[in-house]
């Protein structure tokens, strides 16, 4: 089975966002860096928003055949 997603984890996104905000709030930062951090922060906010507004939960069922091979099917329960 393939991983659910190739994107960094949501937790890591939020951690990075925290870090960006903390650095922006610290004093020793020139506008250059601030702008770069801000752009990255905006991008991460956008990705976080995508996760938050994701479509309906996908429900699937996992079945194993006699040889032990896994099969994933849509679940309509």
């Amino acid at each position, binding site marked *: 089975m393939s991983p659910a997603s190739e994107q960094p984890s949501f937790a890591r996104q939020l951690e990075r966002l925290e870090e960006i*905000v903390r650095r922006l709030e610290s004093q020793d930062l020139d506008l250059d860096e601030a702008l770069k951090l801000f752009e990255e922060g905006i991008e991460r906010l956008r990705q976080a928003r995508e996760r938050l507004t994701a479509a309906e939960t996908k429900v699937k069922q996992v079945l*194993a055949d006699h040889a032990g091979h896994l099969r994933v099917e849509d679940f309509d329960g």
Partner: protein
Amino acid sequence: MGATLDLFAAASPEGAWTVSDVTQRARAAIEAGLGPVWVRGEISGFKAWHSGHWYFALRDKRAQLRCVMFQKDNRRLPAAPTDGMQVFVFARPTVWEEKGELRLTVVELLSTERGGLWQLAFEQAKAALTKDGLLDPARRRPLPPYPRRIAVVTSKDGAALRDIIAVTRRRWPAVELLVLPTKVQGDGAEDAICRALGLLARIDGLDVAIVGRGGGSREDLWTFNSERIARAVAAVPVPVISAVGHETDVTLCDLVADFRAPTPSAAAEAATPDRGDVAVAVAHLGARLARGLALRSDRVAQRVDRTLDRLVGAIDLALERRRHQLSAVGGRLDALSPLKVLERGYAVALDSDGHVLSRVAQLTPGLGFRLRVVDGEVGARVGGAGS
């Protein structure tokens, strides 16, 4: 003397019974005269044979009876009785002809002690799990805060699964639920649950698993006191939430799991964050981000402040209307992007290396620099000194 003569006259191959005649007649008499009965007594000399049959004696102060309980009957019991245990047995008295012994063929066995065999089985399995360190609280793993893939081991048709799906959809839709359908009670349930738990190790990207069922009778829930299931739960490579629908009794499955939920709905709540809460946290980070940039730049400060007001307003809306306002928050954040700021007519001064020139001291009279506006850059030169 005639009677004596008659007596001896019968001592002949024709007149005497064989041993088998006696045991057969005794067996027939006992089986006909003593139907199946409940017998109470104390277990003594218990022995389980490789065949699975149990042999023991039942005794009281004055007498004892040999007993057998065949595998086909004893396999339904949660545990074997131990010597000294007071029990009730439902049995057919018979004669074991090969040994010429009176014997009880036991088809049901109940302990009269508190909790009986069920409790005994529970304690024995718990002791074995404790010995192997599987009940050590230090083994419990934290649940992942933002799962992407959750496995659910439960019945395909039960209310448990419907509840888990509904709660997950409401709280954290950005997740994939993988259902591993199993029997959860009756013959074969233990095997089925163990098999499903074993499959979890082969699912890529799995964050957390829920195993359980809705409420039921004590007997129905007993499957989740299986030592094999408990060991299978302990072997799952991701954190496991146990949800065996009952509030009072704790099952072995609960004790081994990383988190015990009282119901399947509570399990889904434990497995997922609340989307509304997370949205508010993200919106606050967005506000801090905007304020952070404003601190760095006087020139954009005013504009950002104004946008920030709208953003904070958006957060309030997000609090009120949660999911419907989320995309709005995101849209307002876009407005804070530096490019959008340039679009409103602001420009950024850059030196030849692309560094931002933001202080008067950096802009010495006559200095050539580049001015970045929304659709490109232009060359510029500092005229007179400013204030």
